[in-house]
């Protein structure tokens, strides 16, 4: 099972928590990691049926915690109000293999096989052996009996007493062909369920031997005990490996959904001719089966690798087949095909080895809604909304891939509609070898309302906080989401930082979001947003230059309506266009509407005849304009460092509607390049590459330019080392920046240089605020910094004054 949890509010990458769903905790992890292979009767000279019984396909995880615990833990650690639980379930696949007896029917034919008959039983026993082993487990805690024999003598299995419980202290494997003892690292070791230190009865040991004999790996296998002085038993399993003709071709086919070939009962009294006939039929059947089978996903390089293994080996041995099986299965596991299994090797004793794989073909995709108690209900969300988020690789006809499942989880989570999302592949009972992908969703409440309060300390007189400057503030939010089941939503919020004086800074927002504007069946993804808003900002235009910091501030209040359409090309690239209607009010420190900026006179007085704050000259402007923004972002993360390009172009086009009929074209273009300076190997824990960031920003305006829309230079997102607007405010600006990032011990240090220039257009802003507030109009800075988690600590030298200072800032500059 794969589970993930992420808070709804943030788009953090989904973290994976793994836990096996197995209910057999007594299995050693070693057992889990390598599926138990059970082989039917191997008497058939042409064909070996390798039955793979994956006890649990959760080789992804070794975490023994049961899932319920895990979720509980998660809930504890997150401890948030809203969480989304994402679960990708990979439940038990207790073998899709039905017709285990297919080759069993061939038992009795003397061929390469060693042991005789009873193949079916052997297989099934092998299949169920995990449970048997499980049942054995408690016995290890029990008392055991001494063998009661003289020490250091070899005892045959059938000489052991049926009433005693023997403690097995050691287990050896003896390869008769190689005439040596093989270690526990041998691939055969995993075939044996006996474990040193456990207690077994004679019957259990016999069963074990029988199982080994029937698994098809061995031509011959024996078990004998050696008595130890302390009453325990040392067990030696001696075996001869099965081998077949050498092969020089390899083929891999997908036999999923084909069903197993039906066993044909063979009459033991058949004549030789009949036997031959039967044999031919079987061969023909197999050929037909191979033709019918679809090609598998196994890529040519891996097939070549396997072929190389075959050629090197010469004779095809059981060990080799085991290795091939492991190699093939490893590839499937590594690529995320969690349901894929090698079920059979056919065509043995010919030139070609055929590897039969059940890949896990999806036969059905189910989207189910659950209520809080987990009952299946009719969901409010329209199925199509979920469906369009699913990668097509989860649709019937594709092979189930865990990565596609994860992608589905992420995509569905980004809808923000569900509190719990499970992607759960399960075997299709009706369609053998098929997989049904179940997506279980728990919907969030449609209507939510939230009130949050906070206290804030505001700077008092002289910039120092005082007790009296403690302010109560808060936010009231309501949301009605997923209207009509189409993810439409209405959101409203009111925020104030001061309940004593809410009219001071009351911020409100009312937004209606209408996704799938072109219809939910249309792949084009456009979203309509209509919102009412207000905002209040300190204008950086009214900022003093160096050594002139006593500029009376001007607040710019905006309130209005906006309607825009966002076309999402994909997650990062979007194109937005719409209409904005707003009223802009400029206010002075005392919150009075003002029409001109103030300035401090050289003699010390303050005059009100600074640059005009609005276009209309009254302190209140109303305007309607078109706004359009296109963002191209192909950045990606290389070992945690951003690499790629980002371009942004924005145009505000005045329509001549509003105070003084504002007609303007205000545009800005931002180009940012993150150049990777060195090729690095990608992977978790690998060091990120050094990166050179180049950044340019041009802003310009033709036509009516109210002062609050003038482009300002200086500030943490413009030219570092200066205050906001300290360099100037102009009609056209150009900013250039370069930053070199060198990774150091899990973080990075950087050096940068930036320049901002008004291109001589400060005078083209009415009132020339750059000159009035004694600013230079251009400025450079350079500095070095280090990234400490989310904080950037940097030392910047401001080139205009030549003085350096240290800054701590949150977030990224670019």
């Amino acid at each position: 099972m794969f589970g993930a949890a992420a808070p709804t509010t943030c788009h953090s990458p989904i973290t994976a928590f793994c836990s096996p769903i197995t209910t057999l905790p007594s299995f050693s992890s070693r057992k889990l990691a390598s599926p138990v292979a059970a082989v039917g009767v191997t008497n058939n000279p042409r064909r070996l049926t390798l039955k793979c019984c994956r006890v649990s396909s959760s080789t992804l995880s070794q975490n023994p915690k049961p899932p319920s615990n895990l979720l509980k833990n998660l809930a504890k650690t997150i401890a948030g109000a809203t969480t989304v639980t994402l679960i990708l379930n990979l439940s038990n696949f207790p073998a899709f293999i039905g017709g285990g007896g297919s080759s069993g029917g061939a038992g009795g034919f003397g061929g390469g096989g060693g042991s005789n008959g009873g193949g079916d039983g052997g297989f099934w026993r092998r299949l169920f052996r995990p449970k048997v082993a499980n049942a054995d487990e408690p016995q290890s805690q029990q008392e055991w009996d001494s063998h009661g024999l003289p020490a250091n003598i070899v005892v045959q299995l059938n000489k052991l007493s049926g009433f005693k419980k023997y403690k097995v202290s050691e287990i050896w494997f003896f390869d008769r062909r190689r005439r040596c003892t093989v270690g526990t690292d041998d691939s055969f070791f995993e075939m044996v369920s006996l474990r040193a230190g456990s207690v077994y009865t004679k019957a259990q040991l016999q069963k074990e031997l029988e199982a080994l004999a029937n698994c098809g790996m061995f031509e011959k296998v024996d078990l004998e005990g050696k008595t130890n002085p302390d009453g325990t038993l040392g067990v030696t399993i001696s075996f001869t490996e099965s081998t077949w003709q050498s092969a020089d071709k390899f083929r891999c086919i997908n036999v999923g959904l084909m069903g197993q070939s039906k066993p044909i009962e063979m009459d033991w009294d058949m004549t030789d001719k009949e036997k031959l006939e039967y044999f031919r039929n079987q061969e023909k059947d197999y050929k037909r089966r191979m033709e019918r089978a679809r090609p598998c996903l196994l890529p040519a390089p891996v097939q070549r690798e396997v072929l190389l293994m075959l050629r090197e080996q010469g004779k095809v041995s059981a060990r080799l087949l085991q290795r091939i099986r492991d190699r093939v299965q490893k590839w499937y596991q590594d690529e995320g095909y969690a349901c894929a299994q090698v079920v059979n090797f056919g065509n043995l004793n010919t030139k070609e080895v055929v590897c039969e794989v059940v890949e896990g073909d999806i036969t059905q995709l189910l989207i189910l809604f659950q209520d809080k108690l987990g009952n299946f209900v009719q969901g409010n969300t329209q199925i199509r909304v979920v469906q369009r988020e699913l990668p097509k690789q989860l649709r019937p006809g594709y092979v189930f891939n865990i990565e596609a499942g994860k992608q589905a989880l992420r995509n569905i989570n980004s809808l923000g509609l569900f509190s719990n999302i499970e992607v759960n592949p399960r075997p299709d009972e009706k369609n053998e070898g098929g997989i049904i992908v179940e997506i279980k969703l728990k919907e969030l409440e449609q209507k939510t309302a939230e009130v949050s309060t906070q206290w804030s300390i505001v700077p008092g007189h002289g910039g120092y906080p005082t007790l009296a400057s403690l302010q109560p503030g808060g936010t009231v939010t309501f949301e009605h989401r997923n209207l009509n089941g189409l993810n439409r939503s209405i959101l409203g919020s009111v925020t104030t930082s001061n309940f004593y004086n809410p009219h001071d800074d009351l911020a409100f927002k009312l937004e209606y979001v209408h996704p799938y504007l072109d219809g939910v069946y249309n792949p084009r993804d456009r979203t309509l947003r209509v919102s009412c808003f207000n905002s209040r900002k300190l204008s950086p235009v009214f900022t003093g230059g160096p050594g002139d910091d006593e500029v009376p501030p001007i607040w710019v209040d905006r309130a209005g309506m906006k309607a825009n359409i966002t076309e999402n090309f994909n997650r990062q690239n979007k194109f937005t266009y719409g209409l904005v209607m707003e009223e802009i009010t400029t206010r002075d420190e005392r919150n009075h509407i003002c029409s001109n900026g103030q300035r401090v006179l050289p003699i010390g007085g303050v005059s009100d005849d600074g640059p005009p704050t609005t276009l209309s000259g009254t302190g209140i402007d109303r305007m309607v304009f078109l706004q359009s923004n296109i963002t191209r972002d192909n950045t990606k993360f290389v070992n945690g460092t951003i690499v790629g390009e980002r371009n942004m172009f924005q145009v505000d086009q005045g329509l001549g509607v509003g105070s003084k009929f504002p007609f303007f074209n205000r545009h800005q273009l931002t180009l940012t390049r993150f150049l990777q300076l060195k090729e690095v190997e990608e992977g978790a824990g690998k060091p990120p590459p050094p990166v050179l960031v180049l950044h340019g920003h041009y802003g310009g305006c033709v036509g009516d330019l109210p002062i609050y829309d003038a482009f300002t230079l200086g500030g943490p997102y413009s030219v570092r080392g200066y205050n906001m607007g300290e360099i100037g405010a102009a009609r056209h600006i150009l900013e250039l920046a370069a930053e070199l990032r060198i990774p150091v011990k899990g973080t990075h240090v950087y050096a940068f240089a930036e320049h901002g220039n008004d291109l001589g257009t400060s005078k083209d802003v009415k009132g020339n605020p750059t000159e009035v507030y004694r600013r230079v109009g251009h400025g450079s800075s350079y500095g070095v910094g280090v990234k400490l988690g989310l904080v950037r600590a940097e030392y910047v030298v401001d080139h205009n004054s030549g003085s350096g200072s240290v800054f701590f800032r949150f977030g990224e500059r670019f």
Partner: protein
Amino acid sequence: MASQIIREWLGINSFAPATQTKLLELLGKLNQENVNSLTILVMGKGGVGKSSTVNSLIGERAVSISPFQSEGTRAVMVSRSRAGFTLNIIDTPGLIEGGYVNDMALNNIKSFLLNKTIDVLLYVDRLDAYRVDNLDREVVKAITDTFGKGIWNRALVVLTHAQLSPPDGLPYDEFVSKRSEALLKAVRLGAGLRRQEAQGSAIPVVLVENSGRCNKNEKDEKVLPNGTAWIPHVVQTITEVILGGSKSIFVDQKLIEGPNPNARRKFLIPIILVLQYFFVVKPIERQIKSDIARESRPSWEMRDTGSRKY
């Protein structure tokens, strides 16, 4: 202010007879050229003797002068008429306050001058100041920014406190020429005039001595140390400038506010918008499309073509 009563120019009578004759002769000359009114704008730094010069030219105490205080921030127009000829002299407050150009004073002057025609600018400074600094340039720049470069074709540089004995035994004429040369250079730089422009119409320099202890010649005229009677000389230079052919400056709203940057190239906006759409937005959109096409997909997405049917 505008509706100020135009008084008879009585002050002319206080001049020496020789000066009176000369002045009337000059005014008559102007009358002949169909010029029957003359507006003189007096500007300069604070405390250089602008108001005193105005008073000296009018011949009466028309504007109050205070030796140690700034004159306030208002401009004053003194109008006198004589024989159908009107003389307007506009006295302005000092433009420098605390080491900076006083923008407020400048704005006041601007609004005072609205809808008036300036025939002559008298840029006043002291003769006995030895150094020319940035501040002079700033003042000149402020004047230029307000009225345009053309004002300097109608300008006179007036040097007050002309009755002095030059330091280091320098000859008076040499001192005067050096001082005026330095000041003219500052004016040229401040006004942003090119050398040829400045050469073509050299700004005349006149000397003024407003003190009551000013030396007088045998005709009781106020004379400078070099022997020139300065009042007739000033008026004569003004007349020459007026008759020099250049245009007088009419101060209208547009001149005061300067060119409106908001109106510039406004007609280009539709074209700009179209260009932006086709040459910026569209290429970015194309780039996005090609990015998406080139995007490296995980192998599992590529491998499985899903061609199976059930």
